[in-house]
């Protein structure tokens, strides 16, 4: 068919020779539009065209405003006006006439009127209001065509506020006898659902009716709404699964009328829509996925014909199979399918094959391995799009071993790509990989140099931010840090000496900061040389004034000695008269500080950029100045929100709109980004110091463990984790098992050319082995990404106290062995906060030995945890001097222990009593009890034997918690067959999603040998949250004073119309929050972390989700709380 069309189309002579047209007769060549079009084609220059169209528009304008113009003429005029607009000439005078035509014309004129309106106007154009009455009238018309026209325009654009006016009429049309009307009504409601979901909530049952409509067209249309709703809340529509499966079965089985066939494939669009819905429903849900396996298998089987449309269905099928709970049989078939795509000669299919590979490689890295030669070929494909997608695929399989090759390929692409958007994206990815897997300092700095020079001013600002943060915070080894910094300095000096003219501003800023901070590390480097290089930068015409600020700050740090002072004086003189206030300020600072070296040492202490900086965000040091100014008659300061409020004269809280978090920066999210605007304004935004300040301010929030960072973007963490694991195990450890070796070798042998290979072929193979290294041993990793038992054990063994920072990562791996019920988003958050606490351990503030100790200590209790996870069903595990032996889980019943609960705690809400550990006849259990202002941990020690236990010593310790004993004298013995209760009060030192108490109990049995058992007890941070009663005004002031914040969208409870209230109530009840006030679509909520650390929450309904913004003076607290909010809403 397509061939026929193409032939007829090509057979026609070109545009200009109108007369010889076979089809010319049917063209309205005599019409005015025809004349206009022909007139335009005869012109030779753009200028002439402009003149002609302007003439045309003037004449149209004259005619439309003349009272004598009939509607029929008007119709013709509107067609011409739309034509002019399409050519890019404005005809806004005609908009109102288009509306008039829709209003007053007869049916066929109306049709043109409505069309012109839909082409001319935007959804939010104010003239659209004038159309409401017309639509209203036409919806009630007895003429079906008019009803259709009205519904068509409504489904494309309608003023949001006017929806209630026509909603009943549209709803009514759902019962119309004609299917075309029902279909259009469904689509109109879909539009309403998109622009104002709350308005159509009450008609959900009617959507169901549409889904069951006897006409397949109406049913298909209703799927648009369902797809959208299921996307937002998959849990709410699980009951649809069976119906969707049935529909798909019928469609695949060819039960629909032949009209819906497309190239003899039954209703492909419908099939794809259904497959999408299924994949949403089956995601992370085993039992729902079970229902769909059969039909998916059938879809795969049926789609056999060699035509684009069957490939489209296959692609969707494969995606669905890889999204839902996996079934190996189907995965195998899907993998084969992907293989067919990738190997196809058709370029479009190849592209989709790569895209599918990219999608599934996280779950099954072996697939990439299978197709390595094709991937290599695609990497050199002449079509950039194919190349780009291949890089995307490689990005996802990057590990510590292949990072250099892959990054090299990406940089190669960056050098030829001219598209800013691609550059921004790729540069971000390179930076991410470089930070995560850099093999050495030189490579890292050089790669980042390329990133900065190529990415220049289009890259995301968090790239330079996190780079500088990484440099300043360093990693475990002081020596390594010094080397890295020194290398950076040397590299930058040589760059500046080579001529900085072409370097982007952002890069120059990074360079200035690093030189200012670290150039003293390089001993051969004379400070005067650096100063002269910097002042050359100042003189350059290409340097922006923002960059100049950075340079001046760097000079301020460097201006030592006589030479320095004289340079400083010269420079500061030049710039203290600058028109730019920021520059002037910097120049002043430079001048003063260069003259007073003592002051300078205090203001800018050397090598102190990693010290946390106390930011007084209330600016109390300015109090004196303020009161003076007030006394002198100045107007009192009003915070921006108050000013805005007064301007708007509205009662609603006006906080700034929510920004969307960028997917890439989720994990590498820089502090600078997350910093509250208030804090940024403190640091005066423009200044060179701002970045320094902002990351200092939040240094405890997120630490990048530099090149050793493990966690990647949401979604393929599990795969990352396993890649990293194997890499970790393979590289440093000489213990590499022969079986692994064998597997790796085998994988290399999989390359499909056993015969002697020609030269280029060999090159490719070489490239292949360097690209796909590290993936081979993956084949032992099971598909789900859950590392199996043996793997974990091996990992643990590999980690002995001697290994470097690698060990601490592995620790964090084991903490988070995947909790399958939590979805990936939550999971991600959990990871984030874990990594935070993890990295804090190794933070450079603590002396190296101490951090070593800490991480080893931490390691031990993690081992314990890992064991627990592995044998989740068997809660009691004894750890006796490292020997793991599981005992019969005869844990003492909750009931009998609870009677031992101290009297003062008995009325309060408490957690279940869980067994901690036991040793022979000694059983330890614990629970936590939530008081109004406290959280108590109660440990029960049950001795079930006859003999006494003596010299007992129970010690609790925690990284995140402050633990203090409530009992006056420590218990020392437990008599036979009795229970001893120890009570502790807990407060949070450092928030984390789950906080943990580790304990050791040593004791002496009657037999005589000293024994000890270890245990750990985890409790959610939510147990420490209590309501905080504040007024709206107090809330406002507090909000501005807090500097740590986080934003996230949460799912709304959408059963009733009061969704905000309902959602907040759930949170209030589950998490003990205090709802301060609800105003319209916004709500403010406050809580405190025991004893009195406030956290504020601002919620707003935004496009069907709850946009939540949390702020607190405590780092990490907002992140942890948002996690618990998500959990609470999910569990509800």
């Amino acid at each position, binding site marked *: *068919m397509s061939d026929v*069309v*193409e032939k*007829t*189309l*090509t057979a*026609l002579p*070109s*545009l200009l020779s109108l007369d010889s047209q076979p*089809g010319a007769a049917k*063209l*309205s060549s005599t019409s005015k539009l*025809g004349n206009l*079009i022909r007139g335009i084609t005869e012109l030779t220059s753009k200028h002439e065209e402009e003149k002609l169209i302007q003439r045309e528009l003037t004449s149209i304008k004259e005619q439309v405003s003349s009272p004598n113009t009939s509607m029929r003429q008007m119709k013709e005029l509107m*067609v011409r006006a*739309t*034509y002019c607009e399409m050519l*890019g000439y404005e005809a806004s005078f005609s908009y109102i006439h288009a509306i008039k035509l829709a209003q007053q014309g007869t*049916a*066929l004129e109306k*049709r043109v009127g409505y*069309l012109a309106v839909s082409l001319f106007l*935007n*959804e*939010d154009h104010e003239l659209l209001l004038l159309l409401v009455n017309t639509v209203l009238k036409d919806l009630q*018309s*007895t*003429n079906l*065509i*008019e009803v*259709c026209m009205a519904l068509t325009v409504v*489904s494309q*654009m309608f003023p949001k506020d006017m929806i209630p006016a026509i909603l009943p009429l549209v709803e009514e049309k759902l019962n119309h006898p004609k299917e*075309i009307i029902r*279909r259009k009504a469904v*689509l109109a409601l*879909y*539009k309403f659902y*998109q622009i104002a979901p709350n308005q159509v909530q009450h008609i959900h049952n009617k959507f169901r009716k549409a889904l069951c409509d006897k006409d397949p*067209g109406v049913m*298909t249309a209703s799927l648009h709404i369902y797809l*959208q709703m299921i996307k937002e809340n998959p849990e709410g529509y699980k009951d649809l699964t069976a119906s969707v499966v049935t529909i798909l079965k019928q469609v695949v089985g060819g039960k629909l009328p032949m*009209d819906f066939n*497309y190239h003899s494939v039954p*209703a*492909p*669009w419908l099939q794809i829509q259904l497959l999408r819905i299924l994949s949403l429903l089956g995601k992370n849900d085993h039992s729902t996925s079970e229902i769909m396996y059969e039909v998916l298998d059938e879809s795969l089987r049926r789609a056999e014909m060699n035509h684009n*449309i069957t490939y*489209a269905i296959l*692609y*969707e099928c494969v995606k669905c199979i890889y999204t839902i709970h996996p079934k190996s049989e189907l995965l195998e078939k899907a993998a084969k399918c992907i293989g067919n795509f990738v190997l196809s000669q058709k*370029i*479009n299919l*190849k592209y989709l094959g790569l*895209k599918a590979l990219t999608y599934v490689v996280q779950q099954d890295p072996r697939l990439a391995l299978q197709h390595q030669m094709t991937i290599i070929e695609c990497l050199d494909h002449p*079509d950039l799009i194919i190349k*780009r997608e291949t890089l995307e695929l490689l990005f996802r399989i990057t590990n510590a071993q292949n990072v250099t090759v892959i990054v090299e390929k990406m940089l190669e692409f960056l050098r030829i790509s001219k598209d800013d*958007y691609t550059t921004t994206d790729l540069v971000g990815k390179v930076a991410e990989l470089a930070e995560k897997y850099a093999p050495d300092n030189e490579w890292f700095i050089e790669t980042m140099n390329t990133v900065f020079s190529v990415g220049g001013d289009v890259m995301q600002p968090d790239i330079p931010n996190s780079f500088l943060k990484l440099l300043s915070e360093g990693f475990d080894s002081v020596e390594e840090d010094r080397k890295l910094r020194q290398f950076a300095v040397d590299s930058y000096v040589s760059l500046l000496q080579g001529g900085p003219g072409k370097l982007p501003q952002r890069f120059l800023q990074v360079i200035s900061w690093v030189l200012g901070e670290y150039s003293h590390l390089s001993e051969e480097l004379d400070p005067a040389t650096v100063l002269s290089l910097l002042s050359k930068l100042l003189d350059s015409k290409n340097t922006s004034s923002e960059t100049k600020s950075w340079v001046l700050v760097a000079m301020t740090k460097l201006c030592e000695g006589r030479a320095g002072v004289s340079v400083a004086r010269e420079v500061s003189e030049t710039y203290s008269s600058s028109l730019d206030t920021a520059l002037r300020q910097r120049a002043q600072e430079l001048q003063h500080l260069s003259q007073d070296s003592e002051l300078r040492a205090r203001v800018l202490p050397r090598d102190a950029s990693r010290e946390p900086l106390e930011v007084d965000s209330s600016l109390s040091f300015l109090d004196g100045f303020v009161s003076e100014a007030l006394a002198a008659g100045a107007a009192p300061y009003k915070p921006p929100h108050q000013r805005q409020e007064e301007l708007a004269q*509205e009662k609603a809280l006006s906080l700034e709109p929510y920004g*969307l978090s960028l997917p890439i920066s989720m994990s590498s999210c820089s502090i600078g980004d997350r910093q509250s605007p208030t804090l940024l304004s403190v640091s005066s935004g423009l200044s060179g110091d701002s970045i320094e300040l902002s990351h200092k301010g939040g240094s405890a929030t997120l630490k990048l463990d530099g090149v050793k960072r493990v966690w990647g973007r949401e979604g393929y963490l599990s795969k990352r984790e396993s890649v990293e694991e194997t890499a970790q195990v393979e590289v440093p450890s000489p213990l590499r098992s022969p079986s692994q070796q064998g597997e790796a070798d085998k994988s290399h042998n999989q390359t499909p050319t056993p015969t002697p290979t020609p030269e280029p072929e060999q090159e490719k193979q070489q490239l292949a082995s360097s690209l796909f290294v590290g993936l081979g041993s993956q084949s032992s990793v099971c598909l789900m990404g859950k590392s199996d038992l043996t793997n974990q054990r091996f990992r643990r063994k590999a980690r002995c106290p001697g290994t470097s920072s690698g060990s601490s990562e592995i620790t964090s791996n084991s903490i988070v062995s995947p909790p399958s019920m939590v979805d990936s988003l939550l999971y991600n958050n959990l990871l984030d906060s874990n990594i935070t606490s993890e990295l804090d351990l190794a933070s450079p503030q603590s002396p190296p030995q101490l951090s070593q100790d800490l991480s080893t200590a931490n390691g031990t209790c993690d081992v314990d945890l890992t064991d627990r996870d592995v044998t989740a069903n068997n809660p009691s595990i004894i750890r006796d001097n490292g020997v793991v032996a599981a005992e019969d889980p005869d844990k003492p019943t909750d009931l009998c222990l609870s009677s031992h609960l101290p009297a003062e705690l008995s009325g309060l809400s408490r957690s279940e009593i869980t067994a901690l550990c036991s040793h022979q006849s000694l059983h330890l259990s614990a629970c936590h009890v939530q008081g109004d202002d406290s959280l108590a941990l109660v440990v029960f020690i049950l001795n079930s034997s006859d003999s006494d236990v003596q010299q007992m010593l129970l010690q609790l310790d925690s990284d995140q918690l402050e633990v203090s004993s409530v009992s006056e004298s420590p218990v020392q013995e437990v008599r036979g067959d009795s229970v001893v209760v120890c009570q502790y009060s807990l407060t949070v030192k450092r928030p984390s999603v789950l906080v943990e108490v580790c304990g050791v109990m040593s004791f002496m049995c009657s037999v005589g040998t000293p024994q000890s058992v270890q245990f750990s007890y985890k409790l959610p941070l939510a147990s420490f949250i209590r309501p905080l009663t504040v007024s709206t005004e107090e809330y406002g002031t507090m909000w501005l004073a807090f500097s740590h914040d986080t934003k996230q969208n949460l799912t709304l409870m959408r059963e009733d119309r009061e969704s905000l209230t309902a959602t907040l109530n759930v949170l209030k009840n589950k998490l003990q929050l205090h709802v301060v006030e609800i105003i319209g679509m916004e709500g403010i909520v406050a809580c405190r972390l025991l004893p009195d650390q406030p956290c504020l929450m601002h919620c707003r309904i935004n496009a069907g989700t709850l946009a939540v913004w949390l702020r607190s003076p405590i780092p990490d607290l907002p992140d942890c709380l948002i996690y618990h909010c998500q959990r609470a809403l999910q569990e509800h």
Partner: protein
Amino acid sequence: MKQKLPLLDSITLIDIYIRFMLLFSRQGKLRLQKWYVPLSDKEKKKITRELVQTVLARKPKMCSFLEWRDLKIVYKRYASLYFCCAIEDQDNELITLEIIHRYVELLDKYFGSVCELDIIFNFEKAYFILDEFLLGGEAQETSKKNVLKAIEQADLLQEVRLLNDIDVGTKAVSY
């Protein structure tokens, strides 16, 4: 206090299958444009210019898909005309290609061996067909027969009107 979304946001955030559809000639002349996301004229012009340039620069054997900002562009050339749709990255490019093809089939059936000139001189008809096929950026009706039936019935009114010049409202009962 309504906040207007900046260009990029509105085009990528709104969850519509097809964000816009453009038809343009080999010479880069726009023949049809349908925007399913609200954009200002200036933005539309900018996007059109960028895309026409990029698509025309592609060689015939190249892939029919393009990355453009956060979106995917799916395009296909039929004789002297390029049809081009913007979709989201996660969407199915192949089925979009078939959307384009089905539209061409509809045009072909309606005009009888369609050529670029049919679309130039009767562009409003091409829009009518598009509106019956895609509505608000989603596929409305994929049965070729049904789409053409709807169009023909609306056209019929026109014919009747031209012949008899009587009020159409009363005639519509025949629908």
